[in-house]
């Protein structure tokens, strides 16, 4: 893709001024790192980081049957989502293949906002629109309406609270608050395993909010640190750890699937849950040197028994970590495996989630 065709977030110039390396990501020119991935990662674990995630998409669903439409599309039980609540789910095909993973916020009784992955946004919106015709509901592509900042880390709430005109919402809830003088949606969600908030605002507000948050002590953090943070706590990355060829059961996402709701793909998910799957996604840690990478083979007894879907050096643990689809019988914590890292066998062990836990 030509650089000229890449979209820029409202913070593009702020990123350049902060010394960011900018890279193409899902059609956007995004900051991959500023001072360095390790420093940014550790800042989020110990104090606070702020991520520009304005590349993420938004789809608004509204109308008398908005809940019924989303109940049909999303894997989780929408009837459990109250106004001001947040819910994680996957979007499945009829055969259970995962089209995307999504956070949905219920803004009002008949109004929902769903956050899409940048690379899937157009496909998701088309899927929502295609199914909306069966319901008294309207689906709107809201990607142009929002810039999005994730403020994450143990000090994130204190930094944002100083800028807000009301109490921040608790974890997995939302509130509409004035922040730095403009009304925006504040969500108690994130992708780092730390406490914090995500802010959804009009694009023209992004620079002021970015400057206020960084001025308050948040470290600019890029997509590279976002990836290492989420992998330490075993959050899935769409396109790496799941895609249309995987169902939520093998991906370890059965917890966000409520088949009784009759969502598209529910029958396939129920069957996979009952029968079990040949493979399962499992987190692992290298017990010696090396850094596992996406695509490395998992080897047991000289035989290829799986594939790494995400791998990195863990800045918090200082060891190689990753997630891999492995034969189901190997997915138990404690199982010793090897990762074939470009021809070198690296000793590893299946672990339970998350790989990184806060102390104390």
């Amino acid at each position, binding site marked *: 893709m030509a650089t000229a065709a890449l979209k820029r977030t409202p913070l593009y110039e702020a990123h350049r001024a902060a010394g960011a390396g900018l890279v193409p990501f899902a059609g956007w020119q995004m900051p991959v790192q500023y001072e360095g*991935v390790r420093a940014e990662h550790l800042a989020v674990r110990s104090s606070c980081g702020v991520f520009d995630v304005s590349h993420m998409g938004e789809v608004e669903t509204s109308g008398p049957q908005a809940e019924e439409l989303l109940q049909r599309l999303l894997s989780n039980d929408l009837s459990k989502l109250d106004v001001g609540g947040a819910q994680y789910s996957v979007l499945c095909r009829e055969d259970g293949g995962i089209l995307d993973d999504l956070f949905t916020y219920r803004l009002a009784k008949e109004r929902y906002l769903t956050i899409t992955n940048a690379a899937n946004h157009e496909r998701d919106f088309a899927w929502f629109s295609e199914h909306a015709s069966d319901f008294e509901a309207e689906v709107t592509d809201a990607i142009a309406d929002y810039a999005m900042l994730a403020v994450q880390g143990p000090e994130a709430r204190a930094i944002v609270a100083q800028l807000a005109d009301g109490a921040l919402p608790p974890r997995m809830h939302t509130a509409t608050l004035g922040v730095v003088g403009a009304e925006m949606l504040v969500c108690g969600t994130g992708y780092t395993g730390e406490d914090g908030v995500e802010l959804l605002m009009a694009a023209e507000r992004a620079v002021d909010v970015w400057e206020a948050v960084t001025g308050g002590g948040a470290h600019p953090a890029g997509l590279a640190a976002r*990836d290492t943070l989420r992998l330490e706590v075993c959050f899935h990355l769409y396109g790496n750890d799941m895609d249309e060829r995987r169902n939520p059961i093998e991906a370890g996402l059965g917890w966000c699937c409520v088949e009784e709701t009759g969502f598209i793909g529910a029958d396939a998910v129920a069957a996979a849950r009952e029968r079990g799957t040949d493979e399962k996604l499992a987190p692992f840690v290298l017990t010696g*040197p090396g*850094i596992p990478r996406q695509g490395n083979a998992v080897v047991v007894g000289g035989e290829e028994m799986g594939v790494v879907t995400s791998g990195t050096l863990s800045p918090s643990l200082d060891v190689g970590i990753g997630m891999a689809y492995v034969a189901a019988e190997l997915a138990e914590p404690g199982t010793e495996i090897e990762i074939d890292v470009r021809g070198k066998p690296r000793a590893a062990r299946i672990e339970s989630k998350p790989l990184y836990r806060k102390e104390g």
Partner: protein
Amino acid sequence: MADETYPDDLRYHPEHDWARIEGDEATFGITWFAQDALGEVVFYEPPAIGASASKDEAYTEVESVKAVSDVYAPLSGEILAVNQAAADKPELLNEDPYGQGWLVRVKLSDPSEADELMDADAYRAMLAEDGG
């Protein structure tokens, strides 16, 4: 991180490697430009002593959190010594790429290959031309 420098006493390979040639032996490492492009080096596993390095071919790898980079041999020869300190503390490649961040010492099989390498001025000119 070190300041950008390209010492005049070294010879340079276009893949951003340097050689400090002393008779029929040489020390290899990566240039300031290479370590800057890579970012923080977090993993380096030295090749085996006695292994051979072939000019223009990868003889080892260095890794950042996000990526793996091949390291190319500026000259051919047999590896006599490796920098275990850099393996234990890979950030030495960032902090001191021409000193404590050296990678291997090699017995050269054909010292005349050095004629094909660039001096510091030519390497700096190449970087300038690449927009580096």
